[in-house]
């Protein structure tokens, strides 16, 4: 699979067997592919190498059938053995250069990052994509502090390779993540833990597409900005301004903070974000 086609994905699915007791990984992942999953990662931190290899072989076959890229968490050797499309690394795993040496120039290398410094380092070291998260607290990675949507915004501004927002993302909060600047999202438990993974994928894809369609132009503090934010609150988060004590004026009318979430934006709106500076 060429890199260009690979870059098109927006919905990334990762296996999490413990989320669907009684159903096989292959069955659940097939459901996600029917629902439109655009890239699949096998993540198995507890099984033996042999078990991972068996799952990898099965998922390789399945993802080929659905023509989506297949990534394996850790195990560059299994990537080669099963002809998977790439490997996904954590910050504590082998360096990107080492994975690149093992896998050659054509396979994908992705890496999880938790701050902008790690993201820029990954980009410099030749990663093909990065994970940005956990955006929200998640049971998939207990004990890891959530990076919040402000890191998504930073990534959107400064990272040039594809980045995937991940961690605690559900249908209930995906709009905030998209508003913060993400184009690609990954949801683990909300998808594979769903009783209907296919329907859940379709719901996520609809939200991703709605986000893309609703791009509008607003004037923010005198500067023209393109945004997919639906509401004032989403725009503030997208601009990374949510930690400031702000007052907002939309088309000359003050919007009280309590109303940010329900105040919708439309193209041509003029919005002022003001705060207080030293003065006499």
């Amino acid at each position, binding site marked *: 699979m060429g890199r260009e086609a690979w870059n098109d994905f927006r919905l990334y699915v990762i296996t999490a067997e413990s989320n669907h007791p009684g159903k096989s990984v292959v069955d659940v992942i097939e459901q996600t592919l029917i629902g439109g999953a655009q890239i699949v990662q096998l993540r198995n931190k507890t099984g033996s190498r042999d078990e991972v290899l068996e799952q990898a072989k099965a998922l390789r076959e399945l993802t080929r059938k659905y023509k989506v890229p297949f990534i394996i968490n850790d195990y560059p050797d299994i990537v080669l053995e099963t002809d998977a499309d790439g490997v996904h690394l954590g910050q504590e795993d082998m360096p990107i250069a080492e994975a690149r040496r093992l896998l050659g120039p054509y396979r994908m290398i992705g890496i999880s990052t938790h701050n902008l410094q790690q993201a820029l380092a990954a980009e410099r070291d030749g990663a093909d994509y990065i994970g940005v998260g956990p955006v929200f607290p998640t049971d998939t990675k207990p004990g890891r502090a959530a990076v919040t949507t402000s890191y998504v*915004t930073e990534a959107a501004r400064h990272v040039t390779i594809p980045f995937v927002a991940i961690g605690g993302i559900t249908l209930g909060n995906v709009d905030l993540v998209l508003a913060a600047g993400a184009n690609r999202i990954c949801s683990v438990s909300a998808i594979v833990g769903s009783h209907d993974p296919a329907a859940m994928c379709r719901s996520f894809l609809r939200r991703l597409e709605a986000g893309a369609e609703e791009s509008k132009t607003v004037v923010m503090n005198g500067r023209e900005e393109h945004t997919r934010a639906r509401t004032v609150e989403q725009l503030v988060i997208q601009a990374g301004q949510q930690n*400031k004590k702000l*007052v907002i004026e939309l088309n000359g009318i003050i919007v009280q903070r309590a109303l940010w979430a329900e105040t919708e934006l439309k193209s041509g709106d003029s919005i002022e974000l*003001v705060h207080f500076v*030293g003065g006499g």
Partner: protein
Amino acid sequence: MEEKVSRDPLVIAGHTLSSRFLFGTGRFPSPAVLQQALEASGAEVITFAVRRVNLESVEDDSVLQHFEGKPVTYLPNTSGARTAEEAVRIARLARAAGLGNWIKVEISGDSRSLLPDPIETLRATEELAKDGFIVLPYTSDDPILCKRLEEAGASAVMPGGSPIGTGLGLLNPYNLALIAEQASVPIIIDAGIGSAKDAAEAMELGADGILANTPIAKAQDPIIMARAFRLAIEAGRLAWLAGRIPRKKYASASSDWAGSLFEAAAGADSGGKP
């Protein structure tokens, strides 16, 4: 006498302030110096400006974070406004932040002198007072205008000593004294103060308080200067309360001549001084 001196608060719109110093927060070399200078000043009212946030930064760079938990009264200003409408807009933005309803009306009529536009200042004062704000207009040192601002609903009137940031001191002490004398709301001398001496002078003219920023923030040592202002304002106030002596053209000795060692004895040869 102790009673008169120790219980002499400044009351603005029913709010009792024990300090007569209104503290401007701009142009300090660092937040730490700003905080320590405010501490040293004893001021209870702080001034600041409303500006667009810097969208390039996600850090909270608002000046207000340095005063969290401090029992201060917020006096946002409308600097940047050129008309009454712009000032009203800024005032409403500031009030929407939940910082209370005090507002310093500041409308520049000219970018070089930054002198206040009297017409727009009067209009803004009227409108904001009607809208429930506690309005403290920064104005020129015109006694009639100051009276008109009071009538328009200003809770205190703030004539300038000289243009903002010049440090030229009190250019028209006669007017300032007249303004203070005829006012029935507090008169705060705002702008142009250069040093503690000017602050003391203004208080001795009968001003009820001083608003200063640049002479503290840009002093070699802002923290010590803040303390100097505190003392000068207090000294000036006490001198005003005490009542100064009238000015005379010629000297008058501090001691009677009578009993001088060189006084001629009564009835003796009168060769001494008159």
